[in-house]
Protein backbone atom coordinates (compact mmCIF):
# COMPACT_ATOMS: atom_id res chain seq x y z
CA UNK A 1 0.00 0.00 0.00
CA UNK A 2 2.79 2.41 0.81
CA UNK A 3 4.43 1.80 -2.54
CA UNK A 4 1.10 2.68 -4.10
CA UNK A 5 1.11 5.98 -2.27
CA UNK A 6 4.69 6.84 -3.19
CA UNK A 7 3.63 8.61 -6.37
CA UNK A 8 2.96 12.22 -5.29
CA UNK A 9 0.22 12.83 -7.84
CA UNK A 10 -1.60 9.66 -6.89
CA UNK A 11 -1.20 10.48 -3.20
CA UNK A 12 -2.62 13.95 -3.80
CA UNK A 13 -5.64 12.53 -5.61
CA UNK A 14 -6.39 10.21 -2.71
CA UNK A 15 -5.68 12.95 -0.18
CA UNK A 16 -8.13 15.26 -1.97
CA UNK A 17 -10.84 12.69 -1.27
CA UNK A 18 -9.83 11.98 2.32
CA UNK A 19 -9.35 15.58 3.39
CA UNK A 20 -12.95 16.85 3.10
CA UNK A 21 -14.07 13.56 4.63
CA UNK A 22 -11.73 14.19 7.55
CA UNK A 23 -13.17 17.67 8.09
CA UNK A 24 -16.66 16.20 7.99
CA UNK A 25 -15.89 13.51 10.56
CA UNK A 26 -14.14 16.15 12.65
CA UNK A 27 -17.30 18.26 12.75
CA UNK A 28 -19.68 15.40 13.43
CA UNK A 29 -17.54 14.10 16.30
CA UNK A 30 -16.61 17.50 17.69
CA UNK A 31 -20.10 18.94 18.04
CA UNK A 32 -21.71 16.09 20.00
CA UNK A 33 -18.41 15.61 21.83
CA UNK A 34 -18.39 19.21 23.03
CA UNK A 35 -22.05 19.05 23.91
CA UNK A 36 -21.66 15.91 25.99
CA UNK A 37 -18.38 17.08 27.49
CA UNK A 38 -19.59 20.44 28.70
CA UNK A 39 -23.31 19.99 29.16
CA UNK A 40 -24.43 16.42 29.26
CA UNK A 41 -21.90 14.48 31.29
CA UNK A 42 -21.72 14.19 35.05
CA UNK A 43 -19.51 16.46 37.11
CA UNK A 44 -16.96 14.61 39.20
CA UNK A 45 -18.05 13.92 42.77
CA UNK A 46 -14.78 15.29 44.11
CA UNK A 47 -13.57 17.70 41.45
CA UNK A 48 -16.86 19.22 40.40
CA UNK A 49 -17.02 20.94 37.05
CA UNK A 50 -13.23 21.28 36.61
CA UNK A 51 -13.10 17.65 35.58
CA UNK A 52 -14.32 18.82 32.17
CA UNK A 53 -10.79 19.97 31.35
CA UNK A 54 -10.15 16.24 30.96
CA UNK A 55 -12.08 16.24 27.69
CA UNK A 56 -9.46 18.54 26.17
CA UNK A 57 -6.42 17.44 28.14
CA UNK A 58 -6.60 13.69 27.52
CA UNK A 59 -7.30 13.75 23.75
CA UNK A 60 -4.49 16.28 23.32
CA UNK A 61 -2.12 14.02 25.21
CA UNK A 62 -3.14 11.03 23.13
CA UNK A 63 -2.62 13.01 19.92
CA UNK A 64 0.76 14.34 21.01
CA UNK A 65 1.93 10.78 21.60
CA UNK A 66 0.34 9.44 18.45
CA UNK A 67 1.85 12.27 16.42
CA UNK A 68 5.34 11.43 17.58
CA UNK A 69 4.88 7.71 17.00
CA UNK A 70 3.63 8.39 13.46
CA UNK A 71 6.56 10.70 12.82
CA UNK A 72 8.98 8.05 14.05
CA UNK A 73 7.28 5.53 11.75
CA UNK A 74 7.69 7.95 8.85
CA UNK A 75 11.33 8.34 9.83
CA UNK A 76 11.74 4.58 9.61
CA UNK A 77 10.07 4.53 6.20
CA UNK A 78 12.32 7.33 5.04
CA UNK A 79 15.62 5.92 6.28
CA UNK A 80 15.04 2.23 5.58
CA UNK A 81 12.74 2.11 2.57
CA UNK A 82 13.53 5.58 1.24
CA UNK A 83 9.84 6.34 0.76
CA UNK A 84 9.69 9.66 -1.11
CA UNK A 85 6.74 11.11 0.80
CA UNK A 86 7.72 9.93 4.26
CA UNK A 87 9.84 12.95 5.15
CA UNK A 88 7.11 15.31 3.95
CA UNK A 89 4.64 13.46 6.16
CA UNK A 90 6.97 13.72 9.16
CA UNK A 91 7.58 17.44 8.64
CA UNK A 92 3.84 18.05 8.24
CA UNK A 93 2.95 16.28 11.48
CA UNK A 94 5.54 18.08 13.58
CA UNK A 95 3.74 21.35 14.26
CA UNK A 96 0.27 19.87 14.98
CA UNK A 97 1.88 17.29 17.25
CA UNK A 98 3.85 19.95 19.07
CA UNK A 99 0.71 22.05 19.42
CA UNK A 100 -1.10 19.13 21.04
CA UNK A 101 1.82 18.55 23.40
CA UNK A 102 1.75 22.21 24.35
CA UNK A 103 -2.03 22.15 24.88
CA UNK A 104 -1.62 19.04 27.04
CA UNK A 105 0.89 20.77 29.28
CA UNK A 106 -1.11 24.00 29.53
CA UNK A 107 -4.49 22.37 30.19
CA UNK A 108 -2.82 20.01 32.63
CA UNK A 109 -1.34 22.96 34.46
CA UNK A 110 -4.70 24.76 34.54
CA UNK A 111 -6.26 21.58 35.89
CA UNK A 112 -3.53 20.96 38.42
CA UNK A 113 -3.75 24.40 39.99
CA UNK A 114 -7.21 23.88 41.53
CA UNK A 115 -6.84 20.11 41.91
CA UNK A 116 -3.32 19.48 43.16
CA UNK A 117 -2.69 22.95 44.48
CA UNK A 118 0.26 23.48 42.17
CA UNK A 119 0.75 24.67 38.58
CA UNK A 120 3.59 22.26 37.96
CA UNK A 121 5.34 19.32 39.56
CA UNK A 122 8.49 17.63 38.39
CA UNK A 123 7.19 14.09 38.37
CA UNK A 124 7.94 11.50 35.70
CA UNK A 125 4.87 12.05 33.54
CA UNK A 126 5.04 15.84 33.33
CA UNK A 127 8.81 15.84 32.87
CA UNK A 128 8.71 13.24 30.10
CA UNK A 129 5.84 15.12 28.40
CA UNK A 130 7.95 18.28 28.54
CA UNK A 131 10.82 16.34 26.99
CA UNK A 132 8.41 15.28 24.23
CA UNK A 133 7.62 18.93 23.52
CA UNK A 134 11.33 19.72 23.36
CA UNK A 135 11.87 16.79 21.01
CA UNK A 136 9.17 18.15 18.71
CA UNK A 137 10.73 21.63 18.77
CA UNK A 138 14.21 20.19 18.30
CA UNK A 139 13.01 18.24 15.28
CA UNK A 140 11.37 21.28 13.70
CA UNK A 141 14.52 23.35 14.20
CA UNK A 142 16.82 20.59 12.98
CA UNK A 143 15.07 19.78 9.69
CA UNK A 144 15.20 23.41 8.59
CA UNK A 145 18.84 24.01 9.55
CA UNK A 146 20.40 22.51 6.47
CA UNK A 147 20.91 24.02 3.05
CA UNK A 148 20.01 20.74 1.41
CA UNK A 149 16.52 19.58 2.28
CA UNK A 150 17.30 15.86 2.19
CA UNK A 151 20.15 16.30 4.71
CA UNK A 152 17.66 17.97 7.04
CA UNK A 153 15.13 15.19 6.55
CA UNK A 154 17.70 12.49 7.28
CA UNK A 155 19.03 14.24 10.38
CA UNK A 156 15.48 14.76 11.62
CA UNK A 157 14.64 11.12 10.98
CA UNK A 158 17.57 9.94 13.11
CA UNK A 159 16.54 12.33 15.88
CA UNK A 160 12.96 11.00 15.82
CA UNK A 161 14.14 7.41 16.08
CA UNK A 162 16.54 8.18 18.94
CA UNK A 163 13.80 9.99 20.87
CA UNK A 164 11.16 7.29 20.46
CA UNK A 165 12.34 5.73 23.74
CA UNK A 166 10.51 8.61 25.44
CA UNK A 167 7.08 7.35 24.36
CA UNK A 168 6.87 4.19 26.50
CA UNK A 169 8.40 6.22 29.33
CA UNK A 170 5.53 8.72 29.09
CA UNK A 171 2.92 6.00 28.86
CA UNK A 172 4.17 3.89 31.75
CA UNK A 173 5.57 6.67 33.92
CA UNK A 174 2.46 6.71 36.09
CA UNK A 175 2.87 2.98 36.76
CA UNK A 176 6.63 2.97 37.32
CA UNK A 177 7.05 6.04 39.51
CA UNK A 178 5.36 7.70 42.41
CA UNK A 179 3.44 10.56 40.87
CA UNK A 180 0.72 13.14 41.47
CA UNK A 181 -0.69 12.39 38.03
CA UNK A 182 -3.60 10.00 37.77
CA UNK A 183 -2.78 6.43 36.80
CA UNK A 184 -3.90 4.79 33.58
CA UNK A 185 -7.70 4.76 33.52
CA UNK A 186 -8.61 4.14 29.90
CA UNK A 187 -5.86 2.36 27.98
CA UNK A 188 -4.97 -0.40 30.34
CA UNK A 189 -5.16 -4.17 30.74
CA UNK A 190 -8.62 -4.96 32.04
CA UNK A 191 -10.38 -2.24 30.11
CA UNK A 192 -11.30 1.33 30.94
CA UNK A 193 -12.09 2.24 34.50
CA UNK A 194 -14.30 5.23 33.80
CA UNK A 195 -18.03 5.16 33.37
CA UNK A 196 -19.63 5.24 29.92
CA UNK A 197 -21.19 8.64 30.61
CA UNK A 198 -17.67 10.08 30.70
CA UNK A 199 -16.03 7.62 28.36
CA UNK A 200 -18.28 8.39 25.39
CA UNK A 201 -17.59 12.15 25.30
CA UNK A 202 -13.92 11.42 25.87
CA UNK A 203 -13.77 9.08 22.91
CA UNK A 204 -15.76 11.52 20.77
CA UNK A 205 -13.32 14.32 21.57
CA UNK A 206 -10.40 11.96 20.91
CA UNK A 207 -11.87 11.07 17.52
CA UNK A 208 -12.39 14.77 16.77
CA UNK A 209 -8.77 15.51 17.65
CA UNK A 210 -7.54 12.66 15.48
CA UNK A 211 -9.50 13.67 12.40
CA UNK A 212 -8.50 17.30 12.82
CA UNK A 213 -4.90 16.11 12.94
CA UNK A 214 -5.39 14.08 9.76
CA UNK A 215 -7.03 16.97 7.92
CA UNK A 216 -4.37 19.48 8.98
CA UNK A 217 -1.55 17.07 8.13
CA UNK A 218 -2.94 16.49 4.65
CA UNK A 219 -3.16 20.25 4.07
CA UNK A 220 0.42 20.74 5.23
CA UNK A 221 1.60 17.85 3.08
CA UNK A 222 -0.06 19.39 0.05
CA UNK A 223 1.73 22.66 0.76
CA UNK A 224 5.12 21.00 1.22
CA UNK A 225 4.73 18.91 -1.93
CA UNK A 226 3.77 22.04 -3.84
CA UNK A 227 6.85 23.85 -2.49
CA UNK A 228 9.03 20.98 -3.57
CA UNK A 229 7.59 21.00 -7.08
CA UNK A 230 8.14 24.73 -7.19
CA UNK A 231 11.78 24.39 -6.11
CA UNK A 232 12.49 21.73 -8.71
CA UNK A 233 10.82 23.79 -11.44
CA UNK A 234 12.81 26.86 -10.47
CA UNK A 235 15.99 24.80 -10.41
CA UNK A 236 15.38 23.26 -13.84
CA UNK A 237 14.46 26.67 -15.25
CA UNK A 238 17.73 28.07 -13.97
CA UNK A 239 19.62 25.21 -15.55
CA UNK A 240 17.63 25.50 -18.77
CA UNK A 241 18.29 29.22 -18.90
CA UNK A 242 22.02 28.69 -18.52
CA UNK A 243 22.11 26.73 -21.73
CA UNK A 244 20.76 29.59 -23.86
Amino acid at each position, binding site marked *: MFDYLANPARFQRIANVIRPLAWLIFIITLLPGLYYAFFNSPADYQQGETVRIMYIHVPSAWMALMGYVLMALMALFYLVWKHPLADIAARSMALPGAAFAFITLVTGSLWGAPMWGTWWVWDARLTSMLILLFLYIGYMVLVDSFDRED*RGSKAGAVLLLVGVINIPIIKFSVDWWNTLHQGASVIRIGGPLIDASMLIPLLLMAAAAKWWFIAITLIRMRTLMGERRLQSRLASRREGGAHD
Partner: protein
Amino acid sequence: MQAQWAVLKRDLLLGWRGLSDTIAGISFFVMIIALVPLAVGPDTATLTVIAPAILWIAALLATLPQMERLFARDDAEGGLDHLLMIPAPLPLTVLTKIAAAWLLIGLPLTLTAPLLGMMLALPLAGMAMVMLALAIGTFGLLMLGMIAAALVLGARRGGVLIAILVLPLAMPILIFGVATSQAAMLGENAMPPFQFLLALVLLLLAITPWATAMSLRHAAE
Protein backbone atom coordinates in the same frame (compact mmCIF):
# COMPACT_ATOMS: atom_id res chain seq x y z
CA MET B 1 41.74 -3.66 16.07
CA GLN B 2 44.80 -1.88 14.78
CA ALA B 3 42.57 0.67 13.11
CA GLN B 4 40.76 1.39 16.38
CA TRP B 5 44.04 1.81 18.17
CA ALA B 6 45.14 4.27 15.50
CA VAL B 7 41.90 6.25 15.78
CA LEU B 8 42.21 6.34 19.56
CA LYS B 9 45.82 7.47 19.48
CA ARG B 10 45.04 10.12 16.86
CA ASP B 11 42.13 11.56 18.83
CA LEU B 12 44.11 11.58 22.07
CA LEU B 13 47.08 13.17 20.34
CA LEU B 14 44.90 15.86 18.80
CA GLY B 15 43.33 16.43 22.19
CA TRP B 16 46.71 16.65 23.84
CA ARG B 17 47.96 19.11 21.24
CA GLY B 18 44.80 21.14 21.60
CA LEU B 19 45.13 21.03 25.38
CA SER B 20 44.02 24.63 25.57
CA ASP B 21 40.58 23.43 24.51
CA THR B 22 40.46 20.88 27.30
CA ILE B 23 41.72 23.40 29.82
CA ALA B 24 39.12 25.88 28.58
CA GLY B 25 36.47 23.25 29.21
CA ILE B 26 37.65 22.63 32.77
CA SER B 27 37.94 26.37 33.38
CA PHE B 28 34.34 26.80 32.28
CA PHE B 29 33.34 24.04 34.70
CA VAL B 30 35.24 25.71 37.53
CA MET B 31 33.84 29.14 36.75
CA ILE B 32 30.21 28.03 36.72
CA ILE B 33 30.74 26.36 40.07
CA ALA B 34 32.49 29.42 41.43
CA LEU B 35 29.61 31.66 40.42
CA VAL B 36 26.99 29.74 42.35
CA PRO B 37 28.18 30.45 45.91
CA LEU B 38 28.62 34.06 44.89
CA ALA B 39 25.04 34.24 43.74
CA VAL B 40 23.39 32.07 46.37
CA GLY B 41 25.35 33.33 49.36
CA PRO B 42 27.96 31.63 51.49
CA ASP B 43 25.58 29.88 53.87
CA THR B 44 27.03 26.36 53.88
CA ALA B 45 23.75 24.73 54.78
CA THR B 46 22.10 26.01 51.58
CA LEU B 47 25.14 25.20 49.50
CA THR B 48 25.36 21.65 50.74
CA VAL B 49 21.76 21.05 49.77
CA ILE B 50 22.17 22.25 46.20
CA ALA B 51 25.78 21.14 45.70
CA PRO B 52 25.08 17.88 43.82
CA ALA B 53 22.69 19.67 41.47
CA ILE B 54 25.15 22.46 40.72
CA LEU B 55 27.95 19.99 40.13
CA TRP B 56 25.89 18.12 37.57
CA ILE B 57 24.47 21.16 35.82
CA ALA B 58 27.98 22.59 35.58
CA ALA B 59 29.24 19.30 34.14
CA LEU B 60 26.45 19.33 31.56
CA LEU B 61 27.01 22.95 30.58
CA ALA B 62 30.76 22.53 30.45
CA THR B 63 30.59 19.56 28.07
CA LEU B 64 28.13 21.26 25.69
CA PRO B 65 30.57 23.63 23.92
CA GLN B 66 33.04 20.79 23.48
CA MET B 67 30.60 18.57 21.67
CA GLU B 68 30.84 20.73 18.59
CA ARG B 69 34.50 19.86 18.33
CA LEU B 70 33.83 16.15 18.23
CA PHE B 71 33.36 15.98 14.49
CA ALA B 72 33.77 19.52 13.24
CA ARG B 73 37.51 19.27 12.76
CA ASP B 74 37.23 15.95 10.95
CA ASP B 75 34.53 17.34 8.73
CA ALA B 76 36.45 20.50 7.90
CA GLU B 77 39.67 18.71 7.07
CA GLY B 78 38.12 15.88 5.09
CA GLY B 79 38.92 13.36 7.77
CA LEU B 80 35.30 12.25 7.72
CA ASP B 81 35.79 10.36 4.47
CA HIS B 82 38.82 8.67 5.98
CA LEU B 83 36.76 7.57 8.96
CA LEU B 84 34.24 6.05 6.62
CA MET B 85 36.93 4.24 4.67
CA ILE B 86 38.35 2.40 7.68
CA PRO B 87 37.82 -1.31 7.06
CA ALA B 88 36.38 -1.79 10.54
CA PRO B 89 32.65 -1.27 11.12
CA LEU B 90 31.85 2.40 11.56
CA PRO B 91 29.96 1.91 14.83
CA LEU B 92 33.12 0.44 16.34
CA THR B 93 35.11 3.47 15.21
CA VAL B 94 32.46 5.72 16.76
CA LEU B 95 32.81 3.80 20.02
CA THR B 96 36.55 4.42 19.94
CA LYS B 97 35.97 8.13 19.40
CA ILE B 98 33.57 8.19 22.33
CA ALA B 99 36.22 6.57 24.51
CA ALA B 100 38.77 9.17 23.41
CA ALA B 101 36.31 11.99 24.01
CA TRP B 102 35.55 10.74 27.49
CA LEU B 103 39.25 10.51 28.35
CA LEU B 104 39.72 14.08 27.17
CA ILE B 105 36.53 15.66 28.51
CA GLY B 106 34.73 13.42 31.01
CA LEU B 107 37.70 12.20 33.00
CA PRO B 108 39.15 15.66 33.82
CA LEU B 109 35.70 16.79 34.97
CA THR B 110 35.36 13.74 37.19
CA LEU B 111 38.81 14.19 38.71
CA THR B 112 38.27 17.86 39.53
CA ALA B 113 34.94 17.16 41.23
CA PRO B 114 36.29 16.71 44.80
CA LEU B 115 38.18 19.98 44.56
CA LEU B 116 35.14 21.83 43.30
CA GLY B 117 32.97 20.07 45.82
CA MET B 118 34.91 21.96 48.44
CA MET B 119 33.80 25.22 46.87
CA LEU B 120 30.22 24.10 47.15
CA ALA B 121 30.53 22.78 50.70
CA LEU B 122 29.97 19.28 49.37
CA PRO B 123 30.82 16.88 52.19
CA LEU B 124 33.58 14.41 51.49
CA ALA B 125 31.41 11.51 52.56
CA GLY B 126 30.35 9.44 49.59
CA MET B 127 32.67 11.35 47.28
CA ALA B 128 33.76 8.11 45.64
CA MET B 129 30.17 7.40 44.64
CA VAL B 130 29.72 10.97 43.39
CA MET B 131 32.80 10.62 41.23
CA LEU B 132 31.67 7.26 39.90
CA ALA B 133 28.27 8.71 39.05
CA LEU B 134 29.93 11.69 37.35
CA ALA B 135 32.22 9.42 35.38
CA ILE B 136 29.31 7.37 34.08
CA GLY B 137 27.05 10.38 33.65
CA THR B 138 29.59 12.34 31.60
CA PHE B 139 30.06 9.23 29.48
CA GLY B 140 26.32 9.24 28.79
CA LEU B 141 26.31 12.98 28.08
CA LEU B 142 29.18 12.60 25.65
CA MET B 143 27.34 9.86 23.82
CA LEU B 144 24.34 12.13 23.45
CA GLY B 145 26.65 14.88 22.29
CA MET B 146 28.21 12.58 19.76
CA ILE B 147 24.82 11.75 18.21
CA ALA B 148 23.90 15.42 18.15
CA ALA B 149 27.28 16.47 16.72
CA ALA B 150 26.98 13.93 13.91
CA LEU B 151 23.41 15.04 13.20
CA VAL B 152 24.27 18.72 12.87
CA LEU B 153 27.30 18.31 10.60
CA GLY B 154 26.79 20.79 7.81
CA ALA B 155 23.92 22.56 9.53
CA ARG B 156 23.78 26.25 10.15
CA ARG B 157 24.25 27.30 13.81
CA GLY B 158 25.34 23.81 14.74
CA GLY B 159 26.43 24.75 18.25
CA VAL B 160 23.03 26.03 19.35
CA LEU B 161 21.38 23.09 17.64
CA ILE B 162 23.51 20.64 19.62
CA ALA B 163 22.37 22.30 22.83
CA ILE B 164 18.70 22.11 21.78
CA LEU B 165 19.03 18.44 20.90
CA VAL B 166 21.15 17.32 23.85
CA LEU B 167 19.50 19.11 26.76
CA PRO B 168 16.06 17.44 26.62
CA LEU B 169 17.58 14.00 26.19
CA ALA B 170 20.08 14.71 28.96
CA MET B 171 17.37 15.42 31.53
CA PRO B 172 17.02 11.81 32.75
CA ILE B 173 20.81 11.52 33.17
CA LEU B 174 20.77 14.75 35.15
CA ILE B 175 17.88 13.61 37.33
CA PHE B 176 19.36 10.26 38.27
CA GLY B 177 22.92 11.55 38.51
CA VAL B 178 21.89 14.19 41.02
CA ALA B 179 19.74 11.66 42.90
CA THR B 180 22.73 9.32 43.16
CA SER B 181 25.05 12.10 44.31
CA GLN B 182 22.54 13.34 46.86
CA ALA B 183 21.97 9.88 48.30
CA ALA B 184 25.72 9.25 48.48
CA MET B 185 26.26 12.61 50.14
CA LEU B 186 23.62 11.94 52.80
CA GLY B 187 24.93 8.44 53.44
CA GLU B 188 21.75 6.82 52.15
CA ASN B 189 21.53 3.91 49.76
CA ALA B 190 22.58 5.33 46.40
CA MET B 191 22.03 2.08 44.51
CA PRO B 192 18.49 2.64 43.13
CA PRO B 193 19.18 5.92 41.32
CA PHE B 194 22.66 4.72 40.42
CA GLN B 195 21.28 1.63 38.75
CA PHE B 196 18.86 3.81 36.80
CA LEU B 197 21.78 5.98 35.69
CA LEU B 198 23.72 2.91 34.67
CA ALA B 199 20.70 1.58 32.77
CA LEU B 200 20.32 4.88 30.90
CA VAL B 201 23.97 4.95 29.93
CA LEU B 202 23.89 1.32 28.81
CA LEU B 203 20.83 2.08 26.68
CA LEU B 204 22.71 4.98 25.12
CA LEU B 205 25.68 2.71 24.56
CA ALA B 206 23.39 0.41 22.59
CA ILE B 207 21.98 3.24 20.45
CA THR B 208 24.81 5.73 19.96
CA PRO B 209 27.30 3.88 17.73
CA TRP B 210 24.68 3.03 15.15
CA ALA B 211 22.80 6.32 15.22
CA THR B 212 26.10 8.22 14.90
CA ALA B 213 27.37 5.96 12.12
CA MET B 214 24.16 6.50 10.17
CA SER B 215 24.38 10.26 10.60
CA LEU B 216 28.04 10.31 9.56
CA ARG B 217 27.21 8.40 6.38
CA HIS B 218 24.46 10.87 5.58
CA ALA B 219 26.78 13.78 6.24
CA ALA B 220 29.41 12.41 3.90
CA GLU B 221 27.05 12.14 0.95
